[in-house]
C-alpha cells in the first residue's frame, strides 16, 4: 500500500491506563479485557485518510512500568506524535502527567504533537478525574484533549486521527522539516522528497503555498 505520508507515534502513560488496548482497538478493532503487561515496546500500524491522502501511522506502544522508563525515552526523539494517556478512574495516573510531560518535552523534538487522553470513559461510575480537569491541564500545557474508551471504542479513531490532522497541518504550515527523518515523518515512496509544496495536492487546503505542480 502506498502512502503520501508516514507518521511515527508513541503512546505513553502510567501502567494499566489502557495504552495497549487503545492501540489494539485502533489497529484490530478488538478489546482485550486482561491486562497484558507490555514489556519494552510493541509495534502496530494502520492506514488512515486525511484530506483525501493516505497516511500511514506507525505506532509504538511503550511500557508504562517505571522499570522501562529509560527504554521509553529512546523513542521520544523520532516520533511525530504522542498520545499521553491517563485513566479517569485512577487519580494518581492523572497526577503523574506532569512528570510524563517533562520527560516528553525534554527528549522529543519540539514540534512533536501531544494528545492528552483520559481513557476508560465507559467507567463513568468510578470516575476520579473530572473531564474539566483534563481539559484544564491540556489548555495549560498546550495539548489537544480527548476522553476515550478502548472498551467501547468511543473516540479511539478520533484520538489517533486528530493527532494526525494536527501533524498534517503543521506540515502544511511548514513547521515540520519533513526531510529530516528524526522528526518522525516520512514522505511516501512515489512522492518527491524535495518538494513538500507539491504534496498539498489538489485538496482544497488553500493555505499551503505552491499547489500541485504536475
Amino acid at each position: 500500500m502506498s502512502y503520501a505520508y508516514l507518521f511515527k507515534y508513541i503512546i505513553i502513560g502510567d501502567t494499566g491506563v489502557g495504552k495497549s488496548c487503545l492501540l489494539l482497538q485502533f489497529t484490530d478493532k478488538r478489546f482485550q479485557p486482561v491486562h497484558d503487561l507490555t514489556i519494552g515496546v510493541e509495534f502496530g500500524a494502520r492506514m488512515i485518510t486525511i484530506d483525501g491522502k493516505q497516511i500511514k501511522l506507525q505506532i509504538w506502544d511503550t511500557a508504562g512500568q517505571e522499570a522501562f522508563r529509560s527504554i521509553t525515552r529512546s523513542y521520544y526523539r523520532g516520533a511525530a506524535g504522542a498520545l499521553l494517556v491517563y485513566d479517569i478512574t485512577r487519580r494518581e495516573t492523572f497526577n503523574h502527567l506532569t512528570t510524563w510531560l517533562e520527560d516528553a518535552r525534554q527528549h522529543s523534538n519540539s514540534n512533536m504533537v501531544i494528545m492528552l487522553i483520559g481513557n476508560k470513559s465507559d467507567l463513568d461510575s468510578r470516575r476520579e478525574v473530572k473531564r474539566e480537569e483534563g481539559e484544564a491541564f491540556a489548555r495549560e500545557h498546550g495539548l489537544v484533549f480527548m476522553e476515550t474508551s478502548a472498551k467501547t471504542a468511543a473516540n479511539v479513531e478520533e484520538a489517533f486521527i486528530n493527532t494526525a490532522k494536527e501533524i498534517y497541518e503543521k506540515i502544511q504550515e511548514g513547521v515540520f522539516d519533513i526531510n529530516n527523518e528524526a522528526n518522525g515523518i516520512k514522505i511516501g515512496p512515489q512522492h518527491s522528497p524535495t518538494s513538500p509544496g507539491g504534496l498539498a495536492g489538489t485538496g482544497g487546503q488553500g493555505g499551503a503555498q505552491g499547489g500541485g505542480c504536475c
Partner: protein
Amino acid sequence: MEYFKSGLKSVLGAPPPGNQPSGADTVERLVDRLQSSSLLDDRRDACRALKALSRTYRLEVGTQAMDALRQVLEMDRTDCEIVGLAMDTLCNITSPETFEAEVENYGPKNKIGEQFTEIFIKQSDSTTQVLAFLEEFDFRVRWPALKLLTHLLGNRPKDIQEIILVSPLGVSKLMDLLSDSREVIRNDALLLLIQLTKGNANIQKIVAFENAFDRIFDVISQEGSADGGIVVQDCLLLMLNLLRGNISNQNFFKEGSYIQRLTPMFDLPPETDENPLSGWSPQKVCNMHCMVQVIRALVAPGGPAQATAACQRTMRACGLLQALCDILMASGVPADVLTETISAVAEVIRGNTSNQEFLASVMAPSSPPRPAIVVLLMSMVNEKQPFVLRCSVLYCFQCFLYKNEVGQTQLIQTLLPQGNEAASLTTGQLLCGGLFSLDPLSNWFSAVALSHALIDNSIQKEQLLRVLLATNIGKPPVTLMQQCVMLLQQGNKTQCKLGLLMLLCRWVSHCPPAVKAFLTIESSVAYLTALLSSQEDTDDLQETLLQSMCALLLGLCVHFNDDSVPNYTKEKLCHLIENRLGLERFQDAIGGITRHEIYSRTLKHPQPSTKDPSDLLLDHEFCRLLKILEGVVVKSVQDGSNPQEGKDPTSTLSPSDSALVSQYKELIREQDAQIHRLNQTNETLAKEKRDLETQVYELQTSISHLRDQNLVLRAAQINLTEAKELVPSVDTIDLTNVELEKYKNTVRDLENRLAECTLNLQKQERTECNSNNSEYEKLLKEKTLELEKMKKDQENLLELLTEQDSKLMQYKEKLVALGEKVNRIRRKFRRTRYRRAARIQQLKYYRRMFNSITGINFRSKMKELFIIHGIISSPFKTIFNQNYLDQSIFY
C-alpha cells in the same frame, strides 16, 4: 610499581616474566608526565608514547595508565588529538586480540583485554563518555571511539548493552554513524551494531525505530545490492539480528513495506554462455544465503499464525515468491543456494492456500514443460542429488501439502486408475517409484511424502486404498497397501521399513476401512507380533524405533477397529497382544521412541535435517501423531484386555496412570534438581553481595579520607590566596602546616590500611588452614616495621619542617631587606603549589588503582588477596619517600 605488575600477573595466572625494567619504567615516567604536565603538548607527547608502547607493554600501560587516560578523556576532551590518542591506547589495552609480545608470557588465549575492559567499564560514566565522543565529527575522535566501543562490547556484551540502553540517545548515536560518509566509520558501525543487537530484543526494537531498515537498504544499494561485497553481507546480518524471533520488528518490517525492497535483490544474475556459474562469486553465495535467512525469519513455522500469514501474502503479492521460484528453475545455480532457496519457498507457502496454488502452477522450462513440483520430486528420488537438497525438497513438498486439501487430493488422484492413460510423469508416479526403488533413502522420502497427503484427510486415506499396482506381467495387480506390507516383510533396510511404518500408521489412524484393509492382508499382524516378541530390550536406536512403530501400528489397529474382520476384532487383537507380548512389554515398546533424543529434536522443527543420510529416521508429523495418540491407544489395548473393570482392587492405578505418575516423578526430580541449582546460585550470589558490601564499605572509608584531605587542601588554598599577596613567608608556614596535616592524614590512612590488612589476614587465617600462618605473621611484622619506619620518617620530616620554619623566618628577614627578591620567591612558590597538586593527583590515582585491583581480587582466590596486601603498602611508601625527597630538593 613492580608489585602492580606481579599482582595483575598473578590474577592472570601467568608466571612472572623476565624483568623488562626499561619498558615498565618508561611507562611509569610517561604516566607521570601525562598526569602532571601542565602543557598540553607535553601531555600529547606522553599520550602518543603510551599509545606506541601499549601493544608491547599492554599490561604495564593498562595497570598504570588507565586512570590517567580516563582523566584525559575527561579533562582534555576538547582536544581531538589527545583524546584520539588516549582512546587508541585504550583500544589496544582492551583489545580482545592477543598481541605477539604476550603469547610467550601469558599464553595465546589470555584474557588481558577482557580484564582491562572490566576495569574500564567499572566506572560506567567512562563508557558514556566514549559514547559521547561518537558525536564528535573529527575522524581522530569518532573512529577510535567506535573501535573502543567495539572492543568493550566484544569483551563484555551484556554490560555494554545495558549501559547503552540506559544512556540517553545511546542507540541513536550509533545509528547516526551509519550515515557517515566515511566508509570506514559506516562499516565499523555496522559491525558494532551487529554485535550490539545480538540477543537483546529491546535494543533491536530501538534500532529498528531509528530507521535501521532504511539505512541498511540504503547501504545495500550503494554497495551493489546482492552482487556487492562483504558490507552487503554485514547489512544482511544486522537485518537478520533485528528480525529473528522479534515479532514486533517483523511486523514493523512488513508494515514498512521492506519485504518489497528485498524482491529485486533476488533477480538472477545474467547468464553467460561460457560459464554458467560465473555470476555466482563466493561472496554472492554468502549474500544470497543471508537474504534467504531474512525471508525465513519472517515466515518461520512456529511464529504467530496471523503475522506469518500476512508476510506470506505480501511475499506473493510483491513478486518475491515468483523471484524465488525463478531461482529454483534457473540453471547454473549453486547447489547450496538452491537448497536454501527451496527451504525458503517451503516456508513462504506453508499453510497458505494461495501460495501453495502458486507453486503448483509454476512450470519448469524443460521439454516437455513439467510442473516445478514434479521436477523437484524428481530430484528427491534421485540418488545422485546431494542429500541436503533432497531433504529440502521433501520439506518443500511437506509444506506444499500442509493444510492443503486440494493439493493432497490432486496427489492421490494421480495414483488412481482413471482410464485415460496419463502421458506425462505425475507426482504420484514419482512417489510410487521412490517407494519401490532400491535406494532406502528414496523409500523413506517417498513414504513420508505420501503420508503427508493423508494428514487430517480421511477421504484420501480411503481413496488410497483403491490404488492398484501392476506387478509382473501375468500376475494380478496388488493394492498399494499390500505392496507396502510385502516390502516391510522383505529384508529391506531399516530406514525403508521405518518410512513404510510411518506411512501405514498415518494411513490407519482415524480410518477403520484402512485398518480393515491392513488386517486382511495375510501375515500382516503376524509380522508385527513376531517383530515385537523377537527381541527383548535393545539399545539399538533403529531397532527401538522399529519396535515402537510396530507397537503403535498394532495399537492403532485396536483403537480404530470396527470389528469388521472376524479374526482380528478389537477383543481378539487385545488378547493376542496380552498373550504374545504382555501389556507391559507392549507399552514399553510403544513409548520406546519418546525416550530418544531424536524424538524431541524432530518434534521441535518441521524441517527434516540430519547431517548423515542414514540418521534420517523420524518425521516431524509422525512424532506429533505418536504424541497425540500414544495415550489413547495404550488405553484401548488395556481396556480391551481387561474388560471387567476394577477386578484388582490393590492396583488402583491403571498402567497409563502409573505412567503418568512416573512422568510426574520425573518432573519432580527435575524440579528438585533445579531447586538445588537455584539454591546454589543464590548462595554464591549472597556471598558475592557480602563481598561487594565490604568493598563498598572500604571504598566509602577511602572516599571520606580523600574528602578530608580535600577539605584541608581547599582550606589551605583559600588561606594561600588570601595571604600570598601580603606576606609570602607566612603563607609558606601555612603551607608547611598543611603539608604536615596531609602527612598526618597519610599516616592515619596507612594505619587504617594496616588494620584492614590485619583484619583480612585474620579472616584468612580463620578460613584457610594454618599452614601459611607464619608467613602471614612475617608479613604483618614487616608491615608494622614499615609503618614504624614511616612514622620515623614522619618525625624526621617534622624536624625538617621546624628547621624550614626557622629558615623561612630568615628568608622573611632577608626579604624585608631585599624587597626586589620578592618576585622571584613568588615564582618559586607557585611552582611548589603546582608540584603539590600533582602529588595529590598521584595519590588519588594510587588509591583508585588500589581499589580497582582489590575489586578484581575480591572475586578471585584468597591467595591472591595476600599478594595484593603486598601491593598496597608499597606505592604509599614510595609516595611518602618521594614527597620527602621533593621537599628536601626544594629547600
